[in-house]
């Protein structure tokens, strides 16, 4: 009796020990995320219910900050700008990335590696670097103006970053330049999971490249497309470096993003942490809602 029982008992304790080892392994990382991400998120919410300047925060009307947001013209402008970038830039970028990825997935393509490296290269530059490169390219005495003057299209340099519409367009161009290759890589790795014979079969059946693209590539890549859409939405709602370094939010806050405005309200002027936290909490809600909507839409087409 005891001989049978003993190994079982030892095995149980071993299992328990392994179980505890597992918890020990994951505890440091889990604790750090809890302290550095979840706890501050809760604090941001508490902070968003407080009003006052600098560290003189007090609880008053809990919704004061949220009401203030919708009367704040600059914040509404930043909200509008962020959504403009989201609605125009994200689809352009994702469609472009998808087209490029399906071109590069072609087995007979030569210089594939060269094209892939070139298109992917912008990802290696930091956000600050590329923002400043684009700021310089589109400056009044920048390269783009020099070319346009030499071609006789312009007489004097056009202040691209000094006019609201053109400044927004420059930001969109810059964002597409920086992130298309990044998304393309996701699609390329997604395409590698699709059997190439599917494409060959479609070709034999006389499908045009267009039909192949819409009938095979897009449906099979749907999970990846969903993922990149969520990531891009998340990234766009948090745009900061570009707004600060490419256009400095100008002219007259015409291109400012929500994160940039939150930064200004908390660190540039006399800090209004409560109000800034309320705005940042709104971003969190928007990220959550949009991710939820995208997942729902993504599911439906199945």
């Amino acid at each position: 009796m005891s001989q049978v029982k003993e190994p079982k008992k030892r095995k149980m304790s071993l299992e328990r020990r392994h179980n505890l080892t597992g918890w020990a392994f994951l505890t440091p990382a889990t604790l750090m995320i809890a302290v550095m991400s979840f706890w501050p998120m809760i604090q941001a919410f508490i902070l968003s219910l407080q009003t006052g300047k600098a560290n003189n925060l007090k609880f008053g009307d809990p919704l004061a900050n949220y009401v203030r947001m919708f009367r704040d013209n600059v914040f509404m402008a930043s909200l509008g700008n962020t959504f403009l970038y989201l609605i125009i830039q994200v689809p352009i970028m994702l469609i472009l990335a998808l087209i490029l990825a399906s071109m590069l997935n072609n087995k007979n393509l030569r210089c594939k590696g060269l094209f892939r490296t070139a298109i992917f290269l912008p990802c290696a530059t930091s956000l600050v670097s590329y923002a400043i490169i684009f700021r310089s390219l589109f400056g009044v005495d920048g390269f783009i103006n020099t070319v346009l003057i030499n071609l006789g299209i312009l007489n004097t340099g056009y202040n691209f970053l000094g006019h609201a519409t053109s400044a927004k367009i420059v930001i969109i161009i810059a964002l597409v330049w920086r992130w298309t290759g990044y998304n393309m890589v996701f699609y390329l790795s997604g395409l590698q999971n699709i059997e190439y014979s599917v494409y060959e079969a479609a070709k034999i059946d006389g499908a045009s490249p267009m039909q192949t693209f819409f009938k095979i590539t897009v449906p099979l890549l749907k999970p990846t497309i969903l993922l990149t859409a969520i990531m891009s939405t998340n990234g766009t709602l948090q745009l900061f470096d570009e707004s600060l370094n490419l256009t400095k939010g100008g002219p007259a806050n015409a291109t400012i993003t929500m994160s940039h405005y939150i930064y200004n309200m908390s660190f540039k002027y006399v800090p209004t942490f409560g109000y800034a936290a309320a705005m940042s909490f709104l971003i969190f809600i928007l990220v959550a809602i949009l991710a939820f909507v995208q997942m729902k839409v993504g599911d439906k087409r199945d």
Partner: protein
Amino acid sequence: MTKTKRMNVLMYIVLTIVSLISVFPLYWMLISATNKSVDVSRGALLPGAALIDNWKSLLSQSPVGTAMINSFKYAIILTFFALVICSLAGYGFEIYHDKGKDAVMSILLLGMMVPFVATMIPLFRMFSSAKLLNTTIAVIMPTISTPFLIMMFRQSARSFPHDIIEAARIDGLNEIQIFFRMFIPTMKSTYAAAMTITFMNAWNNYLWPKVILQKEETFTMPMLVANLTEGYVTDYGVLMLAVLLCSLPTVIIFFLLQKSFAEGITGAVK
């Protein structure tokens, strides 16, 4: 047949144009760093002779050396701790997984939705009241542990054979030894990918260092470059040289580890 051929030609044209557009701003940056500001404005597209002058001028107006050292210091320390802590967790979540751990993992994944701007203000207040402004620990702490890296290592631990673990246990290795002596050497490519992506993110991070670092001697390269555009007159040659220096480490890593970089950004998703 001619139709396919025409399609092919079109494809090459499109890819060439897109490639040129992708590379041009970087080429222009490189060329501008070697030219005088006036020549950059005139549209110089060939290497000039002003690299040394730009270098001297850049050194005289900003502490590039310090910023370079700072950026390397923050990025290397952060990458080291991130790799150890997150791979340990990813391994723990996968190898010893049970209902409880899976539930914790799902909660951690929700953390991917938390926007950094939202946690930035409480984090700033936290580090500021702990008197940790301008310190390395404050720069690296918030991004050491990320759900993304944990997920990536959990995914790779899935392909780690249980036989090896059993064999090692019979050989008398304890669990932590198995992790360090068996798992890490087998998963070199995952570590390379994770290292590339973490180092690049750390190097390029701008918002948080800008918030937490207020003394010039603690500034990072991206902060230094951004500050160069503050004045009214911009010397394009000097500015582009600074941008070049700021981009060089990540571009070199990109070329050396291109494959693992691509694996890194998509790795966690597969």
